[in-house]
C-alpha cells in the first residue's frame, strides 16, 4: 500500500490523508473507492446531492405549472368566467412559475458548484498523491514505464476520476429523480399518453449506453494510437539532431503518417458511431412526441384531457429529453472512472521497491568508510542476467577509488547501488558499518552524491540548476562550486550570466559545459561519498586537471569514486578496480597494476604509448 511511502512526506493541507484513507483493500472495487474519497468531503457532497434533489423536484413542477396556466387561460376562454378571477389565477401561476424557476436556478447552481468543488478537491488530492508517488518510485519502476504513459495517468486518468462525482454520481441522482418522478407523474396523469410519451426512454437509454460504452472502448484504443503518434513526434523532436544528421526527414514523415492515419481512421469511425446514435436518439424522441400529439389531440377532441394537460405532456418530454440522453454520458462516466481509476490507483498503490526499512535510523557518519561486501546484482527487469558478481572493496575517508572497464561491464551499476537507486540482490554495502538498507533513504542520499553519466538538466537558470540540491544556498557558494567545476568564467561571459536559462537536456551548452554544470551541481552537496560516473569524458585534459586540483581540498574528507575511461583521470587513485563482466578482475594502485601487466596495463599502453606497434601488439592479442 502506498501509505508508508507517503507517510514520511510532509502533508500539506492534509490532502494526502484523504487519498490514503480511501485506499484500503485491493479487492474492493474502484468505484467504491472513488466514492469513498468523495465522501471525505461530507458537507460538499451533502450540499451537492441535496441541491440536486431539490432542483429536480422544482424542475418537474414547471410543466405542471405551465399546463395549469394554459388550462386557466383556456378554461376562462372556453367557460367565460369572470375576467378578474381569471386574471388573478393567471397572475398566481405566473408568479409561482417565476419563483420556481428562480429557485431551480439557485439550486442547480449549488448542485453544479458543489459537485465541481468535490471533484476539484479530489483532483487536488490525487495530483499530490500522484506527484509524490512518481517522485518516490524507484529507478527500476521508471526504467520500465514510458514517461508518456505516466503523464497520461497523471493528466487524463486523473481527470476521469475527478469528473466521476459530477458527471457520474450526481448525474445519477438527478437522472433518477427526473426520469423516475417524471415517469410517475406522466403515467398517473394519463396512462396511455404517458406510455406513449415515455416510449422513447428505454430505446434512447439503451442506445445511448451501448454507444457510450462502444465509444469508451474505442476511446481507449484511440488513446493508445494517439500515444504512439505522440511518441513518434516526441522522439523525433527530442532526437532532431539524429534525424537531421541522417537526412531521414522523409522516413520520419512516413512514420508520422502511418501513426497519424491509424489514429485518424479510428477518429472517423468514432464520429460515425456517435452521430448514428445521436441522430437516432433525437429521431426517436421526436417520434414519440408525434405520437403524443396524435393521440393526445384525439383525446383532447374527445374531451378526455385538456389542452393544458397535453401541453404538460409535451413540456415534460422536452424536459426529459436531456436527462435520458445523458444516461449514456453517465454510463460513460462510470466506465471511464473505473478504467482510469484502475490505472491511477494501480500507480498509487504501487509498492515502492526502495524505501526505508521499518526501523530505519538516520545514517551516522564517523569515519566515512564505504564497503562493498560480496555484492551481486541483477536489474529487476532482467533478473536472469547477473550484472555484478561478488564485488568487494573498501574505501576510507580521503581515499579515491578508480573504476575502469569496458562498456556495459557494470561500472555505473556500482555507482547506482551506493545511493540505493537499486537494491543489491546479494551481499551488502555498508557505510561506517551500517548496512545502507538499514538507514533512512533521505540520510543516505544526502551522504552519497553521484555525478551521473547521462545528466538531466532542468529548464531553469544556470544558477537554479547548480543550486538544485541546495536551493537555500548563498550565491557565493554557487559561484564557488561553479568555479571548482571551471564553469564560472564561461558563465560570466554569457549575456545573462547565472540567470541564463538552460534546459531540456541542455542543448545550447557544449557537451563539456553540460558535464561541468553537472559537476558543479554535485559539488553543492556535502556528501561523504562522491561518485563521478564518467563525468569528464567530454572535458579536455587541461580543464579536467584544473577541476581535479580544485577538488583536492574537497576530496580530503570524503570518499571519492571516479569512473573514467581516460586513465589520467584516475591513475592517482588509491585503488583502481578493473571491472569486466560484472567482476573485479584486477585491483591495486596504478603502479601495482602496471607491474602486473594485465588488462589495465593494456589500456595504459594504448593511451600513452603512441604509434602502431601498440595497436598491433594488442590487436593480435585481442
Amino acid at each position, binding site marked *: 500500500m502506498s501509505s508508508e511511502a507517503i507517510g514520511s512526506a510532509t502533508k500539506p493541507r492534509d490532502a494526502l490523508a484523504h487519498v490514503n484513507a480511501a485506499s484500503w483493500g485491493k479487492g474492493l472495487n474502484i468505484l467504491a473507492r472513488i466514492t469513498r474519497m468523495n465522501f471525505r468531503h461530507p458537507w460538499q457532497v451533502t450540499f451537492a446531492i441535496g441541491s440536486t434533489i431539490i432542483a429536480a423536484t422544482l424542475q418537474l413542477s414547471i410543466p405542471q405549472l405551465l399546463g395549469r396556466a394554459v388550462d386557466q*387561460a383556456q378554461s376562462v376562454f372556453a367557460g367565460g368566467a369572470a375576467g378578474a378571477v381569471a386574471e388573478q389565477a393567471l397572475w398566481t401561476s405566473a408568479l409561482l412559475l417565476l419563483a420556481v424557476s*428562480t429557485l431551480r436556478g439557485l439550486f442547480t447552481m449549488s448542485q453544479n458548484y458543489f459537485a465541481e468543488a468535490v471533484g476539484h478537491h479530489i483532483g487536488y488530492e490525487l495530483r499530490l498523491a500522484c506527484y509524490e508517488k512518481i517522485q518516490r518510485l524507484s529507478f527500476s519502476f521508471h526504467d520500465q514505464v514510458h514517461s508518456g504513459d505516466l503523464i497520461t495517468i497523471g493528466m487524463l486518468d486523473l481527470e476521469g476520476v475527478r469528473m466521476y462525482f459530477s458527471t457520474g454520481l450526481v448525474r445519477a441522482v438527478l437522472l433518477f429523480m427526473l426520469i423516475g418522478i417524471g415517469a410517475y407523474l406522466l403515467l398517473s396523469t394519463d396512462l396511455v399518453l404517458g406510455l406513449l410519451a415515455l416510449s422513447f426512454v428505454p430505446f434512447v437509454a439503451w442506445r445511448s449506453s451501448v454507444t457510450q460504452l462502444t465509444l469508451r472502448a474505442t476511446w481507449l484504443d484511440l488513446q493508445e494510437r494517439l500515444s504512439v503518434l505522440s511518441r513518434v513526434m516526441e522522439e523525433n523532436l527530442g532526437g532532431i539532431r539524429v534525424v*537531421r544528421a541522417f537526412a531521414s526527414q522523409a522516413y520520419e514523415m512516413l512514420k508520422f503518417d502511418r501513426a497519424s492515419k491509424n489514429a*485518424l481512421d479510428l477518429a472517423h469511425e468514432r464520429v460515425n458511431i456517435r452521430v448514428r446514435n445521436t441522430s437516432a436518439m433525437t429521431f426517436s424522441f421526436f417520434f414519440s412526441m408525434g405520437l403524443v400529439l396524435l393521440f393526445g389531440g384525439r383525446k383532447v377532441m374527445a374531451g378526455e384531457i385538456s389542452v393544458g394537460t397535453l401541453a404538460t405532456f409535451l413540456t415534460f418530454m422536452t424536459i426529459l429529453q436531456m436527462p435520458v440522453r445523458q444516461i449514456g454520458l453517465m454510463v460513460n462516466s462510470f466506465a471511464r472512472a473505473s478504467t482510469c481509476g484502475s490505472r491511477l490507483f494501480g500507480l498509487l498503490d504501487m509498492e515502492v521497491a526502495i524505501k526505508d526499512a521499518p526501523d530505519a535510523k538516520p545514517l551516522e557518519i564517523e569515519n566515512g568508510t564505504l564497503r562493498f561486501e560480496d555484492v551481486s546484482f541483477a536489474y529487476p527487469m532482467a533478473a536472469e542476467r547477473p550484472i555484478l558478481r561478488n564485488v568487494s572493496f573498501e574505501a576510507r575517508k580521503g581515499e579515491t577509488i578508480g573504476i575502469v572497464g569496458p562498456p*556495459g561491464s557494470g561500472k*555505473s551499476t556500482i555507482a547506482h547501488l551506493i545511493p540505493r537507486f537499486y537494491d543489491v540482490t546479494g551481499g551488502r554495502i555498508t557505510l561506517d558499518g551500517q548496512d545502507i538498507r538499514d538507514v533512512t533513504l533521505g540520510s543516505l542520499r544526502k551522504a552519497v552524491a553521484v555525478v551521473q553519466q547521462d545528466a538531466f538538466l532542468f529548464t531553469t537558470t544556470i544558477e537554479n540548476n547548480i543550486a538544485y540540491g541546495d536551493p537555500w544556498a548563498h550565491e557565493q557558494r554557487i559561484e564557488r562550486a561553479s568555479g571548482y567545476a571551471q564553469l564560472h568564467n*564561461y558563465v560570466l561571459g554569457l549575456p545573462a550570466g547565472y540567470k541564463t536559462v538552460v534546459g531540456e537536456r541542455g542543448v545550447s551548452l557544449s*557537451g563539456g559545459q553540460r558535464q561541468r554544470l553537472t559537476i558543479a551541481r554535485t559539488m553543492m552537496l556535502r556528501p561523504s561519498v562522491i561518485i563521478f560516473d564518467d563525468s569528464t*569524458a567530454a572535458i579536455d585534459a587541461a580543464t579536467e586537471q584544473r577541476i581535479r586540483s580544485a577538488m583536492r581540498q574537497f576530496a580530503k574528507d570524503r570518499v571519492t569514486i571516479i569512473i573514467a575511461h581516460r586513465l589520467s583521470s584516475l591513475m592517482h587513485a588509491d585503488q583502481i578496480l578493473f571491472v569486466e563482466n560484472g567482476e573485479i578482475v584486477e585491483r591495486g594502485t596504478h603502479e601495482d597494476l602496471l607491474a602486473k601487466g594485465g588488462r589495465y596495463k593494456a589500456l595504459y599502453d594504448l593511451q600513452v604509448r603512441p604509434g602502431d606497434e601498440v595497436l598491433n601488439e594488442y590487436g593480435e592479442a585481442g
Partner: protein
Amino acid sequence: MAQGHAGELEAERNDVRDDGRRPPRAVVGSHRIEEEMFGRAFDKNIVKRIWAFVKPYRAKVYVAVAAVLIFTATQLVIPLIIRYAIDHGMALGGIDLLPLFIACGAFLLAILINYAASYTQETVVGKVAENVLFDIRRAMFGHLQRVSLSFMDKTEVGRLMSRLQGDVNSMQEFLETCVLSVGDIALLFGIVVVMLWLDFRLGLLTLSVLPVLFIVRLFWLPRARNAFMAAHETNSVANGALAEAIHGVRAVQSMDRQQVNFVLYDDKAHANLKTHLTAARYAQVMVPIVDTLTGIAMAVVIVVGGSMVVNASLDIGVMVAFLFYIQRFFDPIRSLTLQYSVMQRAMASGKRLTDVLDVKVDVQDKPDAKVLSPDMDGSVEFKDVTFGYNPKHPVLKNVSFRVNPGETVALVGPTGSGKSSAMALVHRFYDVQQGQVLVGGHDVRDLTQESLGRQIAMVLQEPFLFTGTVFENIRYHMTDATREQVIEAAKAVGAHDFIMTLAGGYDAMLEERGGNLSLGQRQLISFARALVADAKILVLDEATANIDSYTEMLIQKALVKLLEGRTGLVIAHRLATIRGADRIIVLQNGQLIETGNHDQLMARGGLYSKLYNLNYASFDDIPEEELQASAQSGSTT
C-alpha cells in the same frame, strides 16, 4: 527574454515564506509562463490561415452549413406544427380528424428532415474537423523537420508537443463550434422572427428580457474570462511541473529534492484548485440568472398571453408555442457565449500555430540546388568560416582547413572551443555567417540538404536512441539494409556480443532513449547506425568518449577496412583516440591555432603537446603554480 526571467526570479525571491521553508532558488516546472491563453475572438489573419487548411474540404463545409440551417429550420417549425394541431385539430368534440392528421404528417416530415440534416451535419463536420486537425498537425510536424536547428535548440520539446497536441485540438473544437454557432445564430433569429410573427406585441414583450441578459453577460464575460484563463493556466503550469518530475525523476532522487519539490508542487496544485473553484463559481452564477429570466419570460406569456387568450385575441396554441420557444430560446444564447470563449481560445491557439508554421526556414535548398552525387571525392573544406549561434558572439572565427579525400582528420581543443559546432556546419545544420564550407568541392549551400545528408554519417556527441528494437535502431532509415549489414556494423563496433546477451538479441526492445543500456552501449549502437548509413564522410563527435581504449582499439582495427576510401572527421578529448589521424586540427576559442600531424605538433610544443602530456600525466606531476593559477582562473570573481 533574459530580462523577463530575471524579473520573475526576483518575484520568486520575495515570495519566501515567513517560516523560511520556501527555498529561494527552487522552482518546479518550466520557468516560463505560458503564453496568452485567449486572443481576440476574431483575428482575420489567423482565420485566413486556418481557412487555408479548411479549403480543401470547403464543399463539405458548405454542405454542413446548409444542413445546419435546415436542421434549425425544422426545430423552429416543430412548435408551429404543434400550435397548428392545437388550434385547428383539437376542437373539443370535433370530428374532423384531417387537420390533426395533416399536422402529424407534417410533424413526421419535419422530424425526418431533422434526422437527415442532423446526421449529415454532424458527420460532415466531425470528419472535416478531424481531417483538418490532422492536416494542421502534419503541416506543423513537416515544417519542424525543416526549420533551422537554432529554433529547435531554443524551444523545449514539451512546448512543441503542446502545440502539436493541445493547440491543434482547440482548432478542431473551433471548427465544430463555428458550424454550431451558425446554427445557433440562425435559431436565435428564427425564434425572434417566429415569435414576432406569431404575435408581435407578445413577442416584443417576451423579448424584452433579452437586453437584460445581454447586459448581465456584458458584465460577466470579462471577469469570467479571466477566471477561466487563470484556471487554464494554473492547470498547464501544474501539468508542466508533473511532466518535469517524471522526466527528471532520477536527478530529483539523486539530489534528494523530493520534499522541496513536493512543497512547491503543492503550491501549484493548490493554486490550480483555487482558480478552478473560482472559475466554477463564475460559470455557475449565470445559471440562476438565466433561469430567472426564463421564469420572467414565461410569466409574461402567462399573464399577458393568458389574458389575451381570455380576450380571445390570441389562440391558445400560440401561447403554448410561445412557452415552447421560450424554453429553447436561452439555449443558443448560452451556447453562443460559451462558443465565444472557445473562439477566443482558438484564436490564441491559432496564433501559436501560425507562429510555428511561420518560423523561417533559414537553412533552405536553393531553387537550383545540386544533388551531391555519391561519387564525389569526399573532401571537406572550410574557407575562412566565421559562425556564431548568435551572430554577435562567433564561436568559430576565420577557420580554414581542408580534408582531402580519404583522409582522417582530428579536431581537438578545450571544451566549448567549437568542435561540435564545426561539425554541425559540415552538415549544414546552420549557415555560416562568413566564408564557405565545401563538401566534395561544392559549397554546401548549393547542394540539396537531402543529398548532402546522405553522404555524411554522424555519430553525435550524445547518443539518441528511439523506442524500438535494437535492429530498428541500427538500421534506422536505411529500410533496405539487410540483417547481415546490420550485424556486420554491430560487429565492427563491438556491439554484437552484448546485443546477443540481451533477451531477444537484435529484436530486444529498447526502453525510452535506450535506458536499459549503459551509455557506452548506447554509443556503440549509434556508432553502428552511422556505419549502416554507408556514407562517404564519417563524422565522429566523441564517438568513443564513453568507451574504454581497448574496445576502441578493436573498433579502430575493424573500421580500417570499412572506412577505406572514406573521409573521416574525428573529435576526441582522449588524444590516444586520434593518434591514427592523418592530420590534427587544434581549435581554441573558435580559432584554429595549430595543425599538423602528431609528431609535428608535439615538436611544436603548443597547446596540443600540452594537452597530450596532461593526458597521461598523473595528478602529482603538475607543478604547484599551475594548479594555483588554474584554481584561480576557475573562480575569479
